[in-house]
């Protein structure tokens, strides 16, 4: 009996090893291509094991790193400002909704969640932001559209509802006003939820490309993801970006087209792929805390 049991365990592990490989190998292909010599790429195609290893692609990209660094700068600015502002607004709104004794609790809740069910769609928002708020080519066009998500409010509210009302009441008896209660008592008590949501919001800002595609044309304000979009659509974006070619006097025929394309993906996506998995459990927690029953 125990022997048969063992065999099924081995098979099960084998299955998951294969699945894990199927997930991880595609990443390795991208990294391998970025490290392969351009000539061997055109000869052998994209291979998992480079015939000739070459750092040319990275050398080209890092010799004039302005484009990449600027994109990192934009993305970091947008992520930090957006996450702090978004977290504060989310907490404030969620706290008010979580208070059962607030008179306008139900209308406010409906007001917030209705936006999840129905929206004006792309065109009205686009016209609002470009024609009325004049935010084209402004970093605010990257921050504002995804600042406050009803889903995050819901998660936060689920957490804050668990804070006993007695704490708030006793603070009131001591003469504290609502703002003081919120900033001095509720926020410190909500640190775990704030950390989880802060991470989720930062993540969505870091990986945001849609608003950048809509609103950013100015090459100085291109965030990482938009840089990736443009490079994916045409490698010419890199080569036609005069900083690369002029500064180095690159002979375009020897420019490592294929490997540079993959190298920019590695340089732009790699760091986060190393950092985010450490916070993996928070991502699931964010979804299971307040949003799902039970």
């Amino acid at each position: 009996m125990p022997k048969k049991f063992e065999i099924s365990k081995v098979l099960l592990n084998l299955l998951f090893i294969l699945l894990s490989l199927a997930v991880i190998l595609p990443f390795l292909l991208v990294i391998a291509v970025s490290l392969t010599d351009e000539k061997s790429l055109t000869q052998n195609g994209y291979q998992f094991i480079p015939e000739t290893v070459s750092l040319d692609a990275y050398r080209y990209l890092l010799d004039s790193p302005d484009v990449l660094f600027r994109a990192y700068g934009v993305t970091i600015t947008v992520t930090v400002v957006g996450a702090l502002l978004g977290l504060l607004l989310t907490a404030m709104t969620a706290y008010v909704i979580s208070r059962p004794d607030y008179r306008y609790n139900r209308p406010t809740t409906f007001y917030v969640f209705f936006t999840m069910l129905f929206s004006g769609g792309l065109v009205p928002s686009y016209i609002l932001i470009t024609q009325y708020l004049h935010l084209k080519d402004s970093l605010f066009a990257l921050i504002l559209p995804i600042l406050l998500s009803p889903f995050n409010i819901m998660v936060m509210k689920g957490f804050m509802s668990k804070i006993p009302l007695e704490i708030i009441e006793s603070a009131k008896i001591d003469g504290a006003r609502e703002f003081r209660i919120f900033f001095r008592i509720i926020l410190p008590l909500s640190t775990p939820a704030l950390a989880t949501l802060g991470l989720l919001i930062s993540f969505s800002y870091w990986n945001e490309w849609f608003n950048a595609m809509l609103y950013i044309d100015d090459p100085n304000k291109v965030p990482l993801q938009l840089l990736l979009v443009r490079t994916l659509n045409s490698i010419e974006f890199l080569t036609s970006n005069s900083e690369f070619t002029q500064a180095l006097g690159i002979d375009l025929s020897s420019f490592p087209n294929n490997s540079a394309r993959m190298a920019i993906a590695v340089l732009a996506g790699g760091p986060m792929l190393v950092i985010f998995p450490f916070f993996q459990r928070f991502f699931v927690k964010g979804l299971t805390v307040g949003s799902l029953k039970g």
Partner: protein
Amino acid sequence: MLKRVTMASGTEHVPVPGAGLAEQGPYPDSPRGTQKKKSWFRRELHHFRNNRELFLLSLPGILYKLIFAYIPMIGLIIAFKNYRYDLGMFGSKWVGLDNFRYLFATDTAWRITRNTVLYNTAYILVGTSAALLLAILLNEIKAKWSKFYQTALFLPHFLSWVLVGYVAYAFLNHSDGFINRTLESLGFDPVSWYQTAAPWPFILILVQLWKVVGFNTLIYFAGIMGINSEYYEAARIDGATKWQMAIKITIPQLAPLVIIMLILSIGNMFRGDFGLHYFIPNNSGFLYGSTDIIDTYVYRALREVGNVSMSAATGFYQSVVGLVLVLTANGIVKKINPDHSMW
């Protein structure tokens, strides 16, 4: 989940110092009948004063939603206009239902609707069953190893669709891509993946599964962890097999979670995954027949074709049908089992 919100506000009313005043009204002595209107107004004003500070706390959020969610709803009128940038939203001419007539006259509307609904159905069916199966299997593996597999499967979740586009490109690229080179070395003809529409439903479903299966598996796995272990002990004493336990305990216990995830997905049936359908096919015109969904069409109409009104009309169609679908899905679930509905 919305239900809890209303419950908290409705039935669990907790008396607060000062709230007793509210019930009596501010002027308990004044005759109610004579000055009914005025006293109602004053009472509301009094309530507002009591709740003023909390209201102020929610005000930034309310204003934000007003500007970025409610005001754009006015913009839905563009769907009934011939929008011109120089004339603006209110200056452009009304054209009635012309935009919709034009949209439904071609086969575009049918194509993008069919694609959006069919793809979403496939994603839901394939994704949910794969994630459930993997979560149940993961539960049978020692915690140390299971942690490792979870992280590996979860990894693509951290990538944006743009980056997944690069990964797909490394495989599908016509001249140098891994798949074509492998095909050639095996003696087959290479395929122009970005110009051949037929295989794309399978490619998209596979890529979607690759990216999200880890996340969904973890959600269901967390759900399994939450099941009372006494059920399993009792079953073990009764001599139940692993298979019987999975069918008779795990799946029924996970049902509420699965159903909530399903309602959410059905409600979103009309909202396609723009990133997946835009970057993975590399926005290739050859593939629109089998990859184009409502969201990509709306984007192209606005940004590439420049037909604002057509884009708005399609967006309007998507929003309205989407709302109807959410309400219907929730209504049906409420009829069958009120505990599982969202509100």
